[in-house]
């Protein structure tokens, strides 16, 4: 057991966990941030996606020891009132069915739009190359990403 210090959603946290504890369980079990989901544990499905410096990472692939000193944003930190352009776009397009994968999808979209403010279809496909939705909400995810692009552009003007 070691003390791990990390910043989550702008707040400094310290937790006592085994060094090899994947970050997803630190977030879920130790910090009760259950918006980050466990789906496969091996980085294939994208349910556990969080942001670091605006980039999507798989929290199941980061051991606690490596998370020490770093800063992350989870879905709870994007906004609590669904005001982030991606969250709003997700609501406008009514993307979610069961909703389980959507926190990961939304954060993956945020990361994509940081690198590619107006992504092509191929860039969307690539960003979501291993992000799984078993309900099949992909058509609406694509639309929501396009909608978020639109609102972010307007905001910048």
């Amino acid at each position, binding site marked *: *057991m070691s003390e791990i210090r990390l910043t989550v959603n702008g707040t400094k946290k310290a937790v006592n*966990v*085994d060094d*090899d*504890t*994947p970050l997803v*369980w630190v977030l*879920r*079990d*130790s910090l*009760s*941030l*259950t*918006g*980050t*989901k*466990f*789906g*496969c*544990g*091996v980085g*294939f*499905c994208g*349910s556990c996606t969080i942001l670091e410096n605006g980039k999507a990472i798989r929290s199941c692939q980061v051991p606690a020891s490596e998370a020490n000193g770093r800063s992350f944003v*989870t*879905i*709870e930190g*994007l*906004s609590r009132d*669904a005001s982030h352009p991606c*969250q709003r776009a*997700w*609501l406008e397009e*009514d993307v*979610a*069915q*069961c*909703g*389980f*994968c*959507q*926190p990961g999808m*939304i954060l993956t979209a945020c990361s994509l739009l940081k690198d590619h403010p107006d992504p092509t279809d191929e860039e*969307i*496909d690539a960003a*979501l*190359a*291993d*992000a*799984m*939705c*078993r*309900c*099949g*909400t*992909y*058509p*609406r*995810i*694509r639309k929501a990403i396009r909608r978020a692009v639109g609102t972010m552009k307007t905001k910048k003007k």
Partner: protein
Amino acid sequence: MITSRRAFLKTAALGGASLVIAFDNKRLLAAGKEATPQFKPNGWITVNADGTVTLTIGKSEMGQGVRTSLAMILADELDADWSHTNLVQASPGPDFIQLDTGAISSVASSWTMLRHAAAAARDMLISAGAARWKVDRATCSAANGEVIHSPSKRRLKYGALVADATKLPLPEDPPLKNSNDFRMIGKPTKCIDGREIVTGAARYGIDTKIPGMLYASIERAPWRGAVPRRSQDALALAVPSVRLVPCSLGIAVVADTTWAALKGRTALAVDWGDPPKDAFESAGHFKKLAQSAEQKGIITRKEDPPGGNSPTVRTIYATYFYPFYAHATLETMNCVADVRDDRCIIWAPTQAPNALQEEVARFLSMPPEKVEVNVTLMGGGFGRRLAVDYALEAAEISRIAKAPVQVLWTRADDMRFGHFQAASAHRLSAGLNSKDAVVSWRHTKAGSPHNLNPAELAKPREGLHQDLSRGAYDIPYVIPSIETQYVTVDLPVRHGPWRSSFAASSVFAREAFLDEVARIRGIDPFTLRLELLQGPDTVQIATLNVDRRRLRRVLEVVRDKSGWGGTTSEARQGRGLACNVYNGETHVACVVDVGVDDAGKVKVQRVVAAVDCGLVVNPTGVEEQVEGGILWGISSTLGSEITFVNGLAQQSSYADYKVALMRDTPTIEVHIVPSEEKQPYGMSEPPVPPVAPAIANAIFAATGKRIRRLPIRSEALTKA
């Protein structure tokens, strides 16, 4: 949160703070009125003094949109304010029945009584308003959470009238709204839980956490009765907080955190020895299925023309195969149980709270009322969560560990120990007369009934074999001689309901074979279907009503919207068609465009679908279910199958069990065809069955290669 009948009666006794009307399948009851022990509500509505309206009902949400649709029906009939309409998940009690959510029936089955209850509440509130103002009741109406007296333009919020309304008698036969007056029903409406989902606040089963809870990961025996030959107990126990709990199905590794349990389980490294000699293999099973489909089975439908059939001059034969599939829900199976000496509390993502309560109670030798079941949101269900295996595991381990326990399945557990969609083989033949008309049709399906409940298998119910051959026996086409049969093939692995259950395999075989018939005759597959849909407009097949007008209409819509009949000059491009009447209720047709590259990889480029699902409650929900059903169909056609070697499913992750991703997603157009039907029908399963055959038929158009076995392998389609 009101979650039992006793709580319902208690609320009623709170002194008229709320207007509460409960309903079962037949009648209504206002709280505090003639409460009888016989009354077992399956839902109730509450109008509170603060103006909020709540529907408490036992329908589980797994992404099919039922919570939104039911709230819409309530808000519409009650004329409630949508922004103040809420849903509460009911828990089963011994006297709270019919909570199970399967086979797409939620909206359809709740439709009538929910409307009656809402209409009664509206009626009472209007009467209370009229009495308050001392005006003629006929001059009062309701809208958006208020009672309105039009002549004086006075308005009162429902909340202000609740106390008065509770003192009024329950109206005997409250008038229901005319469909022209619907305000919510039929209007595109967004998911009622959307905000919670996009902010990460939505709570699924896996998110349950209660004080003192331990975490368990179970190393399950791969074969029934297997015992560990070797295990590294000391290494497992070296992980802090880990303890080993032998249980019915294997060894539970129990710890203070999820990670310690998972780590302990890996360290345990159980060697389960050698598989039994007769362990199940899917390769052998397919041979057995193929042979069985040639045998005589139970006749599920037989029709011959009274005057004898015209002579058959040629007969076309083919055998089709449908594989094993997993549900692969994103949220793996999980359950929290807190078992004490005299009671048990369960938190479960389940489609079957009643069955869960009964089975856990039986397992713990407790009366059912001592088992409290809290139903959480589900990260996908698709039929998997109609089984209650994971709840029994949690109850057993909690009892032994004497603490609340969360059992969490890993992705590999979920893939290997699921209950699978069972494989089947289909032998079809079509006889043509001298004018090339289809005069006979034979379809023998060899498959396996669900084996989750052995008691059900021992005593086949009436109509079971029809259900098993759904999609085959209810073939909607007009053919003078039809005979369909079902051959039961023993299947030792666990198998059960899977989105669209028995229909998907039969419809794949039927609709692809019909395409073969069209090609052999040299006519357009659309023309052949329309030709076979002439004759009586409606037909009863066993207990199902098939309306050929509705089927023709959805076919015509996809023909017109897809540009069917246009020719493509591009190589290895093709267009395919399929249709189906699901359960005699929802009529679906789709046209699929595919491209096949030289390496044989198939890309579904566009799907145009049309559906007639009766009265549409939420068009947005219908569109989403069609989109999702199409992706489900693409996964099963172009993704992975489950195979068994040595009694074990060989797939254990999303790497070897592939499902559709963003890049596999076509352009999708959904057309909801206006229906004259007065009631809604299910929508989560019906879009699935026509997708696979439409893709297979499009591949034939693109490559000339006939697909008779799923999933489709690119090796079979490489350019010669």
